[in-house]
């Protein structure tokens, strides 16, 4: 597993893995669909998530979307900047718009995530 690989889920989250820590956010497609993000609700540090578990909500004028954990593990850090600057999700979805960092409990789960090509296939079907 190379450092800084980026993977995707069918529910429009992205994952960047470094060692046993995964950084998670939502994709450019997802932020485009939402429009201007007004609020991001994130869990507390220390919360343990199962793969596929809802971990938060992201809200725009248009809609409310749920955030699903792409992996099983413990939340070790959340992006507190998003509380005052939720627009970072729109402006820089793969950078400053990151949401949570998870310490992986099951590293093998990374192998089940979509590659960029795999995610593009999901988008093409929509």
């Amino acid at each position, binding site marked *: 597993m190379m450092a800084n690989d980026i993977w995707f889920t069918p529910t429009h989250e992205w994952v960047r893995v470094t060692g046993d820590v995964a950084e998670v956010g939502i994709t450019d497609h997802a932020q485009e669909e939402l429009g*201007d993000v*007004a*609020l991001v609700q994130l869990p507390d540090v220390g919360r343990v998530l199962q793969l596929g578990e809802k971990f938060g*909500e992201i809200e725009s*004028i248009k809609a409310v979307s749920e955030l699903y954990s792409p992996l099983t593990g413990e939340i070790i850090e959340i992006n507190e900047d998003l509380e005052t600057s939720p627009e970072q999700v729109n402006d820089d979805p793969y950078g400053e718009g990151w949401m949570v960092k998870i310490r992986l409990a099951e590293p093998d789960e990374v192998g089940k995530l979509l590659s960029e090509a795999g995610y593009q296939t999901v988008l093409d079907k929509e």
Partner: protein
Amino acid sequence: MLRTSLYDLHVRQGARMVSFAGWDMPVCYRSGTAQEVLACRHGIGLFDVSHMAEFHITGSQALAFLQYVTTNDVARLSPGKSQYSLLANEHGGVIDDIIVTNLAEDDYLVVANAGCYQKDWEWFSEQAKLFDVSLVDETNETALIAVQGPAAIGLISELGMFDASQIKRFHAGEGSIAGVPCRISRTGYTGEDGCELFCTWASAPRLWTSLVSGGGVPCGLGARDILRLEAAYPLYGHELNEDVSPLTAGLQWAVKTAKADFIGKRSIVEQAEQGIRDVLVGLTVVGERVSIPRQDCSVYTPSAEAPVGRVTSGTLSPTVDARIALALVSREASVVGTSLEIDIRGRRVECTVTKLPFYRNGV
């Protein structure tokens, strides 16, 4: 799905399209809803509302017919004048909200909501059987472009080569805008000054393009909804429906019970006599880092278990920079300044009852 004659232009201008009342309509363009709202409030917003229904009513009993099916007093309309009105049902609920325009003697136009098109046409057709009137559905021939904002009258004057400010509010005149023959109606749904331009389906693209070149900013349905909410105008299906009294929605001014009998009159008079239990209020959410209130969220007095009302419309207002809502609440909870709570997906959010409108005409 149906398309207006501006569909290609919307797509070319980067619109995100959405299905609305069977029509493929722009919900926003590239810069997004919030930017469009601000563009309208500070300059000129353009709205394709060609999907709305237009019914042309003529005949020796056109006035009597409209007096019978609408709640407002149609007799007050001289040629060129319009009024906001309601189609009420027998139970005193609202079938639709409409604009009635007197075009000439025994000659009227009704503009109605796209979402109520089928229902309204059937209702009109049924009721018209009792009157000497002719009904023509002009929906699919009539294009309608709203030009709204503090600079809207200026643009219309420039492109029409006349002083558009001479057309009084809720009046209409015939003219030619950028070479396109139009009826120019000084009406709108944004709380800004401006006009709505009626033209043929075929000539609408040329008119739209000229308005854009002149500085008009295309605005989608998302912006339209926020603008009308800020101005506290009701939206059918939210503040108005067949089970809500016009009195509850604060529309007693559009109901003239001194008129001779009209559909719903008896029920509405009874409602007034019994007293209205619920009223439409404005709510402003306290704080910024909280959820946006939306239709059907329950409203409570602080820490109470039983709701005192529900949200009918909610949004994040770019104009007043706050989360705002319209809500139906019991009279006791409706005093301006009252602290209430809105339940948004399981979380209680604090808000205050605010004077309406939130924003209209620069204030």
